[in-house]
């Protein structure tokens, strides 16, 4: 599954969680959107027009984020609502936030002890391109996976606070 750096631990420490994050993400897209994710063959850049974030607190503290471009976000919404892409409206942020929420919940439920000992915040969605994301205290290990949704790159990151 790991190849050409598309899927990488940002720093050491929790690399064994990468397959769990990968599985948690794939399950959400397959079950809720009916779309299997694929592994990119090259390191495609993502234009992060949408960033959904869910905070984790408790035995694991950090921020899980899902980043993608506007087309991918609209496609996700279309699949989730079962409507044509042209009919997708302002519910894009709600849809992406819910995807992020489900990935975070599914991920923590796969790690022994975290289902009980880790709470999730409501999702927050940032739109635009001219911003940087910084989580206080998250300069320690983090995880990142890159996948393709309908041929469009998405990035799932877990910043872990020390």
């Amino acid at each position, binding site marked *: 599954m790991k190849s050409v750096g598309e899927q990488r631990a940002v720093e050491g420490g929790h690399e064994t969680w990468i397959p769990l994050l990968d599985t948690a993400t794939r*399950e*959400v897209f397959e*079950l*809720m959107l009916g779309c299997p994710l694929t592994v990119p063959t090259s390191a495609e850049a993502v234009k992060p027009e949408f960033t959904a974030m869910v905070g984790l607190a408790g035995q694991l503290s950090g921020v899980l984020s899902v980043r993608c471009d506007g087309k991918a976000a609209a496609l996700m*919404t279309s699949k*989730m*609502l*079962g409507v044509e892409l042209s009919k997708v409206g302002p*519910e894009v942020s*709600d*849809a992406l*936030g*819910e995807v992020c*929420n*489900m990935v*975070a*919940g*599914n991920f*923590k*439920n796969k790690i022994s002890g975290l*289902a*009980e000992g880790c709470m*999730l915040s*409501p999702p927050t969605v940032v739109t635009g391109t001219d911003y940087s994301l910084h989580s206080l205290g998250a300069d320690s290990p983090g995880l990142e996976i890159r996948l393709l949704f309908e041929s469009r790159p998405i990035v799932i990151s877990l910043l872990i606070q020390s």
Partner: protein
Amino acid sequence: MPIRALIVDDSSVMRKIVERSLRQAGIDLTTVLEAGNGAEALAALQTNAVDLILCDINMPVMDGLEFIKQLPGVANAKDVPVVMITTEGSESHVVQALSCGARGYIRKPFTPEQVKEHVVPVLGGKS
């Protein structure tokens, strides 16, 4: 038998997914009421009778567990089965929800088959 459902979730997109999953599960929905939190759901039940309630746990204003604790005092909700649909997958959440009166518990992400598996039995032949 036609079913009147109340879907409680702070995500409007998720409410639509739950409704679609119920229909895909073969449940004959005649009326679908939506609420964004427990307080809105209680208000909806003041003037509407339903046969089934599907409810998230983590919501603003009033969460799903507090909502189902208050249901015994609501005339339109007496004996109405509640199925929780949530990302919270811990055993303690399941136990807490069931002890508060929930009749079923579905973890997100889910399939229409899982919805059917958990919802049809609690309808007691109404579906």
